[in-house]
Structures are given as structure tokens and as C-alpha cells.
């Protein structure tokens, strides 16, 4: 499903050059459940952003479903993100002025789903993550764990093929972390959604089927 070859990413900050990714190659099959670990600044988030088509690499090739991503227009990339990729972030990134339900509806709005169907589908997803009773609440009225579950519901509402999670449990206590990981592994095992998790937590990494280690913008040995 994902085929990355010699991906590099360079940040130019005035005089200094930061090579965030140095010729990284990785291939991920449909239905895999993997985690990426590594020290701070090793380039994990940068890799995830490129994988999620939020950013473009300086060089290298990236095939998503056998299609070269760099050939796609900005609108096509938006469509790809909308239909095939769901994002979960460490800081949840819910829209503060929207209720939980409205937050989950957002990807459906951009897919032009009619309002009634949108509400139904968003409700179903919130129930799936165990938040059927919190639909009208604003993010500020929810706990961190609940907010992250809303974010997961938003990520999966469009039935994506891939979920990218950047330290999804980074801001959560162990119970909430467990809940979030339960949901993500269930999505992987039941719906065959490919899940990529970035984490610093070995317990989280242990629950995935494959762990990659990134250091200074390069993968070091890969363990199962």
C-alpha cells in the first residue's frame, strides 16, 4: 500500500541545514499494524507528515496504492487525505467551537455527504469509540482520553484505508492509553485498516505487530 524509496527531507533554517530524513525507505502492506519509535528529533513526525501527504519530500519516490504522490495536484492530495487517510495527533486537534459530533462530521462535510447521512455516520462512529453519550459536548468539556477517542472517530468516519497516529497516547494516562490502543487494534484486526503509530512508549509499541526504530533520520534495525 505504501512504498517509500530514499525519501529525504531537509529543513533550511538560515545558514544551518537540518536533514530530518536521510534516504528513508519503507514499505507497508494493507492491513499492517506498525509502530515507529525513536528519540526526539529523529524525524518521526516528518516521516508521518510525508506519509499522510501533508508535506512533500525533498527527494525520493512515494507510491500510495501504486500511484506516485508527487504527481498529484493539491486537490487530489486533499481528496486522498479525505478518503483514504485518517489522522490522530498527540494534542488531539479537535476544533474547539464544534461539538464532538460536529468534529466527527468534518471529513464528511468535505466529502459532500448530505447532512442527515452525515449525522448518522458520525453518531455511529462516536458510539463505536464508546462516546455515544457525549455527542453534544464541546472538546473542552471532555477528558483527554475522550477527546482522543473523538479524534479517532473523526479519523475513521470516512472508512479510511490508513490511520496515522503521531503519539496518540502521549498526553494520556495509562488507562486512557489502553482504551485508545484497544480501539486502534480493533480497527486493525476487524476492519483491516492499516495503522501506523509513532510512540515513545514501549508498552504501546509492543501491542503493534512490527516496530521500526528511527534515529537521526534513518531506520536502524527493524524488530518484530
Amino acid at each position, binding site marked *: 500500500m505504501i512504498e517509500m524509496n530514499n525519501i529525504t527531507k531537509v529543513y533550511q533554517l538560515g545558514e544551518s541545514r537540518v536533514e530530518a530524513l536521510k534516504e528513508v525507505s519503507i514499505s507497508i502492506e494493507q492491513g499492517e499494524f506498525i509502530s515507529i519509535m525513536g528519540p526526539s528529533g529523529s524525524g518521526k*513526525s516528518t516521516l508521518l*507528515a510525508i506519509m*499522510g501527504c*501533508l*508535506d512533500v519530500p525533498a527527494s525520493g519516490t512515494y507510491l500510495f496504492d501504486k500511484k506516485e504522490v508527487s504527481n498529484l495536484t*493539491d*486537490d487530489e492530495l*486533499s*481528496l486522498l*487525505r*479525505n*478518503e483514504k487517510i485518517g*489522522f490522530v*495527533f*498527540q*494534542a488531539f*486537534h479537535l*476544533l474547539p*467551537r*464544534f461539538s464532538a459530533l460536529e468534529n466527527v462530521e*468534518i*471529513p464528511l*462535510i*468535505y*466529502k*459532500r455527504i448530505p*447532512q442527515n447521512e452525515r449525522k448518522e455516520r458520525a453518531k455511529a462512529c462516536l458510539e463505536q469509540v464508546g462516546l455515544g453519550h457525549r455527542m453534544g459536548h464541546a472538546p473542552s468539556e471532555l477528558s483527554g482520553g475522550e477527546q482522543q477517542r473523538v479524534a479517532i472517530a*473523526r479519523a475513521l468516519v*470516512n472508512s479510511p484505508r490508513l490511520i496515522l497516529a*503521531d503519539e496518540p497516547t502521549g498526553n494520556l494516562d495509562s488507562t486512557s492509553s489502553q482504551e485508545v490502543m484497544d480501539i486502534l487494534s480493533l480497527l486493525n484486526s476487524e476492519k483491516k485498516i492499516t495503522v501506523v503509530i509513532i510512540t515513545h512508549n514501549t508498552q504501546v509499541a509492543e501491542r503493534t505487530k512490527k516496530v521500526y526504530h528511527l534515529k537521526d533520520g534513518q531506520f536502524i534495525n527493524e524488530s518484530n
Partner: protein
Amino acid sequence: MKATDYLYLARKDIANFKLRSSLIILCIGAGILSSTLNLYHSSKRQEELLSSLSGMGSQMISIWIQDKEIQSKDLLFLSSYFPYTSYQVSGQNEIKSFQKIKKEARTIATVPQYQAVHSVRIKNGRFISSGDIKQRRKVCVIDTSMANELKVRVGKQIRIDHDGFRVIGLAKAEEMMSGQVIIPLSVCGEVIPSESRNFEVVILTSGNPDVLRKEIERILEKRFPDKKQKGRKGISFDNKRFMVSTAEGLLGMIKEQRWTSRMITLGIGLVTLILAGGGIINLIMLSVRQRYKEIGVMRACGARREEIFYLFLLQAVLLSFYGLLLAGIIGIGYVGVFGGCGFPIFLEGLLWSSIVCIGVGICGCFPARLAANISPWEAIRDAN
């Protein structure tokens, strides 16, 4: 994304900046209202000028008395130079028949010469006579179409404000006479409110009107020298007490007035555009900055560039639309209360205002473009 969703999101943002948004709406509303009302009022004045022009052949000279202290008796000497001199004091009044039919009309208090100067044709009864003036009779002449509207005949009474007047003659319905009630000059003091009173003398001549105009001006200037008034800072300025013009001159004045009123309207519109446009750019910039992270999240959820662009542009468009709505409602209310003769002009003003509004809306394009060009990853990363 569908139109209703855009509206929903944009409204949420406007609600988020209540104070600033309402200030901008007020600014647009006030600007549009004042430019439109300016157009409306000046066109009302033009109509007055036009109505005095409509009864004026090319051989006429009109003297507008601007100084309220000058009265008709001070100008009676003109009749000895010109046999066809009509003294006219006019104002707005409410006319009521005894069947309780009401109508706004222009009341003109005048002398018998009016009939000849303006070639009024009487169908029934007679015109105002010198006897009516001497005896201060409460009589009036109206045209046949107004008589039909009020359902009155010669010999019947009508009310001008609160005074009863007997109809003594019906004039042929012509443009000159439409909407006018003619009464004897000597009773004007009781009927025509002094604050809205216009005093005009119209002279029909056989000579060259331009030469005569200069002659009359010279005579009047001798009799009524301009008062030098002291302004607040001690600067004296001329205070014209009268204005003498020929039909041709009057036409030129109307044209000039039209032009200046359009220019003033344009000017107010432009200032509104600059102020409100700047305000809108500022407001939307603020909203873009505040929602920097959210824009990134929306893009991650599949929002296309143009969808972000239209979302912010719509905010600007909505704000200026609300401003237009505000001005429209107040303006229509105003025109409704203070007489509807300029309603088409008012609509024209609103049309111009819509152009201003579109301009203001277009100002929203700049911040909206900025928002659309935000790189999604940078916005999300920044917030982490």
C-alpha cells in the same frame, strides 16, 4: 463542501468576533445609509428645481429668495417694470377632503399673474383674483386629477392642514399643476409653515432673458445688499440673499447639482469602502491567525485550498451583506416616514451601495488567499 455548510462555518466565525463584526457591519451600514440618503435628499431638491423649471418657458426669469427676511411686499416694485410677474410662496402641506381622503401636496400662495406666467388653463370655475388677495379669502385652485382623487367639485371645501379652503377653480391636469394647490398670496402666512417655505418670483419677459437677468440682479443688489456675516474665526463670508436665473441657467444648476450629489455619494462610498474594507481585512486576518491550527486540521481532513478560501471569503461577504441589510432596512423605514417621492432614487442608491459591498467583500480575498495557502503540516506542527 456545500453552500449551507459554508454558511454554517462562516457564521460561527462571525459569532466568535462579535464586537469587531458588529462594528464593521455598523460602519458599512452607516456609510451606505449616508451616501444613499445624500443621493435621496439631493434628488428631492432637484425635483423641486425641476418642478419650477417645468412651468418656465425660455422667456422666463426666476428669482429665488433665500433670505427669509425679504418678503413679497418688498419685491412688489418689480411689477411696475414687468407686467407679468408672479410671486410664489410654496411649501408642503397635507390636503384632506371631507371624505377623509388624505394627500401630500405642494401649496403655492400666489397672485393672479401666476395664471399667465405659467399658462394655467382653467376648465371649471376661475383662478385666484386680486379680490381674493385683498379680502384674504380662503379659496384654492387644484387640477382635475387631484379633484378626482379627493372627490371634490368647485364650491366644495377641502382642508389644508387644519384650515378649510373652498375650491373655486379646477385647472386642466398638466404636468405643471400636478400635485399642487394654489391659494391667494395673502393667506400664505396662516397655511404654509415658515420653516419649509420657499419664496420665488417668476417673471415672463419679451426681451433677452440673459440681459434682463443681469439687470434684475443689479437692481436687487442695490436694494438688498449682501450681508457680510462674521464666521466663528472672524472670517467674513458673503451671504447671498437671492438668486436670479434664467430657464437655461436653472437647467445648468440642476445638472451641476446632480453631478455634485453623485460625487458626494461616490466619495462617501469610497470612504466606506476603505474603512470597512480595511476593517474586514483586519478581522479576517485575525480569524485566520486564530484558526491557524484549525486550518491545518481541516486540510488534513480533506479540505481543498479553494474550500478554505471560500470559507474565509464568505465571512467578508456575509459581513458586508449584513451591513447592506441594515442600511436597507433603516433607509426604507426613513423614506417610508419622510415621503416616498424619491423611492426609485433610494433604490438606485442601494444599487450603488451593493457595488460598494461587493468591493468590501472583495477585500476579504486577500486574507482568504493567505488562509488557503497555509501549508497544512506547518499549521499542525506549530501547534504540537
